[in-house]
């Protein structure tokens, strides 16, 4: 895919995620929108995955440790054709496998998540297994910036440095907001990069909505030996829709009728600009 197409796919993921949340009546918009470019670059450019064989042993893996951003991951997987897009309308419903937080039993999902702070350890386990078996797959992990307040993240950071887990590449989605407010007010984790560096990580700081920077960072991480990589991505919570951006209430809150309209109009405009299909 070209960079324009990857940018377009990020907006398509946002729109699909929003439709998924609207059909469900609830879901996490802000954090889903802040990781759209990361997911687009991973699934449509960088990750070795095969929707025909979702469990293939040599595949690259992704642990969405901030498991509440399932709408974005499920949207990306649907666009990747792990399952039909129509299936997304069952999200959060009683008979669906698409629970509120990501589920390992969904095709394309490599690990369940929901209880924050655990995904980095799990991703590290996958990376250590690969290294032990001589399988050179990469393991990606997406962490929330609020999530790294959990102490277990730093246990995993220490162990990943210790075991030189160079197949592990962790993104920190640094959108600067958490459920109760700005991270700076609730509990500052800053500086993030320096903390990972102190545990022996390769740290790359990027604009998390810049396709080119994300591609370069992943390429660099992939050739880094003996050190795991943390890609600290500066992002905007609710990115792509003016009324959602930087709004704490869209961590898990519901838009008004007016806001739904604005959101779809803005996403459609952006998608059209990037050469995609309009919202029907």
């Amino acid at each position, binding site marked *: 895919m070209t960079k324009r197409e990857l940018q377009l796919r990020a907006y398509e993921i946002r729109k699909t995620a929003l439709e998924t949340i609207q059909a469900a009546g609830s879901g996490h918009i802000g954090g889903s929108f802040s990781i759209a470019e990361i997911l687009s670059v991973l699934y449509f450019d960088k990750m070795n995955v095969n929707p025909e064989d979702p469990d293939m042993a040599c595949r690259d893996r992704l642990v969405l440790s901030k498991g509440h951003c399932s709408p974005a991951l499920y949207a990306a997987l649907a666009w990747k054709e792990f399952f039909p897009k129509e299936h997304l309308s069952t999200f959060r419903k009683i008979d669906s496998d698409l629970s509120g937080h990501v589920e390992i039993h969904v095709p394309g999902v490599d690990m369940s998540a929901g209880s924050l702070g655990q995904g980095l350890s799990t991703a590290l386990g996958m990376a250590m297994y690969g290294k032990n078996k001589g399988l050179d797959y990469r393991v990606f992990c997406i962490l929330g910036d609020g999530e790294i307040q959990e102490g277990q993240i730093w246990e995993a950071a220490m162990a990943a440095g*210790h075991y030189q887990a160079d197949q592990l590449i962790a993104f920190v989605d640094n959108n600067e907001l958490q459920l109760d407010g700005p991270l700076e007010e609730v509990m500052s984790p800053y500086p993030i990069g320096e903390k990972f560096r102190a545990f022996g990580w390769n740290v790359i700081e990027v604009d998390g909505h810049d396709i080119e920077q994300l591609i370069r960072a992943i390429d660099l991480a992939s050739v880094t030996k003996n050190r795991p990589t943390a890609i600290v991505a500066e992002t905007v919570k609710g990115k792509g829709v003016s009324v959602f951006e930087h709004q704490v209430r869209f961590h898990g809150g519901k838009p008004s009728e007016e806001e739904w309209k604005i959101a779809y109009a803005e996403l459609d405009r952006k998608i059209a600009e990037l050469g995609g299909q309009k919202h029907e």
Partner: protein
Amino acid sequence: MQSWIVKSQSWGAKNMSEQISTRAAYGRALEKFGEDNNIYVFDADLKSCTMTCYFAEKYPERFFNIGIAEANMVDIAAGFATCGATALVHTFAMFAAGRVYDQIRNNVAYPGLNVKVIGSHGGLTVGEDGATHQCIEDISLMRTIPGMTVIVPCDAHETHLATQAILQAKGPCYLRTGRGPVETVTDGFSDYSFTIGKGITLTDGMDVTIIACGLMVQEALKAQKLLEAEGIQARVIDMHTIKPIDKDLILKAAKETKAIVTAEEHNVIGGLGSAVAEVLAASEPVPVEFVGVKDVFGHSGSPKELLERYELTPKQIAACAKKAIGRKK
């Protein structure tokens, strides 16, 4: 000497050669059955206590010390299991069941991963280290997690067989071992065989049934002798698997002996006694008496002193047996 017999050097075993701790037996069994190159072993700076040291020495490439970070250990193991590994995590029962309950619940049991949680130093007989290290809630905590198998072997022989069985079974499992050396009793029964979920009738009797797990099986056998001297025939069941519990065996015992005593080195709330009572209450209500820690914390002391203080003794089991018999309708 059979291959599973290991003298516990760390417990002054030189004068008690017939007594072996279940953790030592586990360590040797893991070493013996650990040849499959998809078995991975994790410890949190306790390898000489949980006895994973033998495996670590034999298979260093499949042993990972995660340091004093139990939460990280469990989730790393979960990551291995998603790739098809059989992953075994080891720490004291207190930290396995208590400290990392969420990791086990959400990242092991919920995704149904093949992670075995081995909690050593279970119960009061940790001894002198005191209450912070005496886990009397682990059976209860682990039993309440959907899909979790819970096993508490009573002696070295049974631990050996249980270890072999859990390595062959798929899915999440909690296995409790103990710190101190215990008598080996199960190898004396000719028709003994170990199957997960199947209790074992060690002695037959029609007056009362004692259902025990862990080191209380040995105490139950002593109680059976005390009762026999008074003309009471007690059936003793070794219920090594607390979940899935052997309902058929419990119901058969209830129908035939009409009085039950449970005995466990655990809080009387939520453990073996509760599991047995749940089965009985649903279809065969008979009098039940519970021998266990009576909802209080432990204390420093020698294992023997603690078992006396908290009434985990043959005498107490026998007294409860008589009480249960007295309550028969």
